[in-house]
């Protein structure tokens, strides 16, 4: 059973744990500084009216990410 998916694919209320960041350079570091590293638990708390960006709960803060960026974060689904 493969529970790996992209962060973008999370639906509202879904929780997942970060498996890998496939971004490079500045944006990688920026997300890491927000606390998004391997092992971090994230929750999708909602999408904007047009579906993109989406908001994620990361270590107690709500951060909005565009699909281009959240596509580059692989996560493992947890219930």
């Amino acid at each position, binding site marked *: 059973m493969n529970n790996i998916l992209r962060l973008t694919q999370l639906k509202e209320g879904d929780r997942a744990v970060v498996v890998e960041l496939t*971004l490079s350079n*500045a*944006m990688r*570091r*920026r*997300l*890491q*500084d*927000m*606390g998004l*590293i*391997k092992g*971090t638990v994230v929750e999708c*708390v*909602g999408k*904007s*009216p*047009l*579906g*993109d*960006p989406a*908001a994620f*709960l*990361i*270590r*107690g*803060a*709500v*951060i*909005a*990410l*565009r699909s*281009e*960026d959240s596509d580059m974060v692989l996560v493992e689904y947890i219930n």
Partner: protein
Amino acid sequence: MGMTRMSMDEKSVDTEFVVEKKNPSDKVIALAGNPNVGKSTVFNQLTGLNQHTGNWPGKTVVNAQGYCSFGGQRYVLVDIPGCYSLITRSGDEEIARDFICFGNSDAVIVVCDATCLERNFNLVLQVLEITPKVLVCVNLLDEAAKKNIELDLPKLSAKIGVPVVGTTAKNKKCLNQVFTGLVSVFNSLKDSPPLVVSYPSYVEEAIAILTPEVEAICGDAVNTRWVCARLLDDNESLVKAISNYVGCDIAKNKKIAFLLEEIKEKLAAKNSSFEQMKDDMVASFINKAEEICSDVVYFGDAAYAKKDRKLDKIFTSKLTGFPIMLALLLAIFWITITGANYPSDLISKGLFWLEEPFLDFFVMVGAPKFFYEPLVLGVYRVLAWVVSVMLPPMAIFFPLFTLLEDFGYLPRVAFNLDKHFKNSCACGKQALTMCMGFGCNAAGVIGCRIIDSPRERLIAIITNNFVPCNGRFPTLIALISMFFIGAATGLFSSFLSAFFLTLLIVLGIFATFLFSRILSKTILKGETSSFVLELPPYRKPQMGKVIVRSIFDRTLFVLKRAMLVAAPAGLIIWLMANITVGDMTVLAHCAGFLDPFASLFGLDGVILLAFILGFPANEIVVPIIIMAYMAQGNILGINDLDVLKQLFVDNGWTWVTAINVMLFSLMHWPCSTTCLTIKKETKSLKWTAIAFIVPTIAGLILCFIFTNFAHLFI
């Protein structure tokens, strides 16, 4: 230290910022922290100053300084822009980084948000890596208490080895603690040494390899361990800034390059890489923050943010997100228009009633006509118009807008509109700078520093003028009421005015999208860049404070600026209207010259001249038009909108003219202050010129199309 900041890269520092000590013994304190943790509020409380505050990340984009003293020691407090990390990308964060790293401050206060301590601690740990002179100020304790979050601050302090104080910045009592905390920072009263995050052993070995060489170059100018770690981080911009600071290009030093190469080979031999090492280094900080906070923060209620999520659902859902945005805009305008109506009328009547006594007074004391006529009929009249028409809407709009800002609604606007900005290849944070433009376009342009990518920042700067500032929408309101509401009265009419105004604003926002897109397909080609936006918790706005602050700080400030410009403009326009060359006044000559061109766009020479003369401030466009028309006729008492309308109609206005004036007011060159700000922000005449031309062309095209379209039917 013996180092100066003279050699600093111009781009990497806020070159205009100099810490001004009033006394050599003053201690310089940097106030750092994540965006939107209440730094500016703490700063204001400590210094008694009035830095503008708001509930959205990026409110402070430039350093501000203030003074305070405690126990005989004077402090210079520097409020720096919020940042998540010292490894940064955007301009405002670079300012913060450079001040913390190289600002030679005597101590750093890191302000944290008690409701989100873990995320905040990454920065605390990073600052501790540079300097042990740190005071951690855990702010917003009241918000945390409301959410049932408890914090054990003494334990936290013991863990990190520096003083920790808790504050609720809204309550002044806690602030003495900040000073006591500072005193103990300087006296090093703590038993345990300040915490420095340790890296995995292989990273520590690499640091040890670099240390002797870095020490030889930097001496004690900067923290050696920190520089070594940054070399391993391979952070180009920061290494460059360090190099400038110590006056030697570290990255180009042959020995260091050799050592770094050696480290790289060692890593490769172990199947690792620099990239992996970087990840491990970041993770050290994040994990340490998690470890510390899990021990000192207790969540009494797992669903502590339930209320925020509920509100988010209302403000950002598919169904209600946009309707609520429009409704709020409409409501704000409606309250502004309705509320401003009566006081505006009263002030106007009062000020124009005073005109005659003034004239009588000058006649009585025997003042010469060439002295008092320009003074009263020129300067005074324009001032009276500006005060009566501008003051009431501003005094209502600013507080209302500030309430929304304090509440935390603006980031949600950015969240909702981001997709449109993305389609225009622009940044979603442009929505925030757009909102600032409502207050003042110059402020909006400065605010564009929150946008990381230079390309997207330029787009935001160039298109900021499509949102009408406070100097413009009273003009719009006046024209709407004159030409489109007319007979309708009462509740319905003010609602209709608000509706028309909202339509115009939406048009402006649409133009922002369109021109952002055109710019990114033409002269500012490029890929859409990444975008990270924090949606902060909602906070209850402090009503009383908001009202007092926005009236005294913003309204009066903007009004003062408008009046300073209006007075000389009033004089010039009176002179133009009264000095005759040949058989016509100078004004008539100018207007006549512009007339053929202006009529192409459904305007007339006087209107275009008024916009040109209104370059210093948009507030004076309508009074110039009035005065120019009055110089040709002889109408007294312009305090009545109906009389004014008659004046305009007598001078050939139709509803088409009125719409054209509104469109042109919405889209024409930015005012002089904004242009100067654009020049300062972009450091380029070319982009300033483009920011001048783009909205002007947009306005002219729109007026041209509308005029010709309307004439098909008339």
